[in-house]
């Protein structure tokens, strides 16, 4: 899964759980400050992102992922780490 795939999936999740128009989303978009998402949507997105991307997003990391770009970085790193470590 490359960065573009992750972004597409994230946009789909934002549309599904937050009713956000994908047109309004880019890497700089901040979940709360720009999109006004509430804490319930964020908790749901975090758990579902772990399931869909197959990576762990520990809570202390999740708190710091304020923008779409930050999530892409984290998921990319986590996926690369799995491959490097011969993971799933």
């Amino acid at each position, binding site marked *: 899964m490359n960065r573009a795939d992750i972004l597409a999936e994230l946009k789909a999740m934002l549309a599904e759980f937050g009713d956000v128009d994908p047109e309004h989303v880019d890497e700089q978009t901040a979940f709360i400050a720009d999109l006004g998402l509430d804490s319930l949507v964020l*908790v749901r997105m975090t758990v579902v992102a772990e399931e869909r991307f197959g990576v762990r997003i520990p809570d202390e990391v999740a708190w710091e992922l304020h923008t779409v770009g930050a999530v892409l970085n984290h998921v990319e790193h986590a996926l690369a780490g799995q491959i490097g470590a011969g993971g799933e």
Partner: protein
Amino acid sequence: MSELVRFLREKMWILGDTRWYARVDSVRGELVEVERLGYAQLDARARAVGAWLTDHTPPGAHVMLMYPAGLEFFTAFLGCLYAGRIAIPAPLPDTDRRALQRAEGIIRDADVGLILSDTAHQPALGSWLDGLSPERRAECVATDGTVPPAPDTWSPFSLHLSAAAYVQYTSGSTSEPRGVVISHRNLLHNLLSIREKLLTEEILDELRHDPSPPGAGWLPHYHDMGLVGMLLSPLACYGNLVFCSPVSFIAHPLLWLQMISRYRAFYTFAPNFGYDWLLRSLKAGQLTELESDLDLGSLRFALSGAEPVRAETLNAVARRLAPIGFRPDIWAPSYGLAEATLMVTGTPCGQGPTMRRFDRDALEAGAAVPAPDGIELVASGRPAGMDIRIVDPANSHPVKDGQIGEIWARGPSVAPGYLGNPQATAEHFAARTADGDGPYLRTGDLGFLQDGELYVTGRAKDLIIVNGRNIHPQDIERISETTDPATGPCAAFALPDATGREHIVLVQEIRPLHLNGRAPAGLAELIRKRLAQELRLAVHVVIVGPMSVPRTTSGKIQRSRTREELRAARLDPLHSDIPAQSPLASPTGGHEAGRPGS
């Protein structure tokens, strides 16, 4: 052993493992049961914890419980009750970013020397504790890790009903946590009130016989409704319980319906936001494809409490879930607060909710006047083992039925007070009416009585409630004020939109000398980002000039007046995040009942 412990253990003795508690989770959309303990197993583990506590701590020691959702927490909590140690349930940092900060405040406030947790969380909590200053040093022990003593080494000892059972931290801002001391008598009385006032004799009879229908829920165990309403009340009513963690429900809202359907649950319970969240997450058409799987026909009691109960939510949920067997007459609105253990008023099973329409303008002026095209309010039921008075908060005179005032409560469920805070205890727990009747608990909530039922219409306090989170405006304001040298005093409050959904607004004064040519809109963005990061809150920022936020003569900012000024368009903002066409921006937009512009 107090009468409360005898009462709880009696059920375990009589019923053994014929009754159970089970926790489930969602795995790839499917419900999976992850743990289950029978009553007798719970009792054995609680006795083991009790024996360990008796050996390792002095009587009456304050023991903080920091567990994930699950039965390990419940056995540790019961173990504290058995041993006469005072449990203090607190959230783990994974559910709230500021949980550790809050926990540190509790350790200091309650002089906690021991924290119990599980092996998965003990290492992280241990290293956090090592980093605290030595005078706050507490030890963290995992109850599932240490080899516990045999249950039989626990020996019951006599404890008076007035002894403290646990401390419920709910009220108070992050910097000043406030713990409600709940006695053995309080808990016993509230559990009996729930059993006697909410359940009919016929239902109780069903619960006593096999197979006993379970309850289903997902509330956090560190809140009063999760602890007393979800975990403890089945034990008092001979019932079973199936539950999941709050995070599992938030992430997989259908899990709630799956629990009810799979286990044939006869009752469920949640604050209004839970039902709202379920509704929001059910996309159009989603239920029809699941209809064949889900059947809520077993449900006879759906409690809504701990938050204002909204007619729109009850009606919309009932409509949405009707195809899978949800009946509108099973709604059971209730009202309660931690200061009264949990329940203050409730609606008995089978009675159905009372919803009536009242004139909006009259409500805002403080009177409940029936009007066919007015705003629909839901009654929170009748006093359950409690004496309720509606009192004018300004002069402490009781008001007539149909008049809005502050809700005062008295009864054996009302807590003795706040831990180590005689001043706050005197302010909240020792109220007397103008004619000397008392003492009453001042709930801080506003409402009226009509035909014996309580309608809760607002909050006298400035507390903001969003998605089940109680947010103190001080916490928002403190962050905003320290965002930039140009941010001066400010006021945070909630404003409802046309649908009644509340939004948080912050009116922020600028210090022009520190603005250095920057645009007010840029400052608003900085504040929004900071609040999003620190509190995970989306806030509408309104920037105003110096001395624009109304203050008292002693210089304290006035939130409700700021709010009125904003709604009346008298603030003249330099920047506003609220779009001009938004119902939040119009003086007539939004509605709410009976919040006096004090």
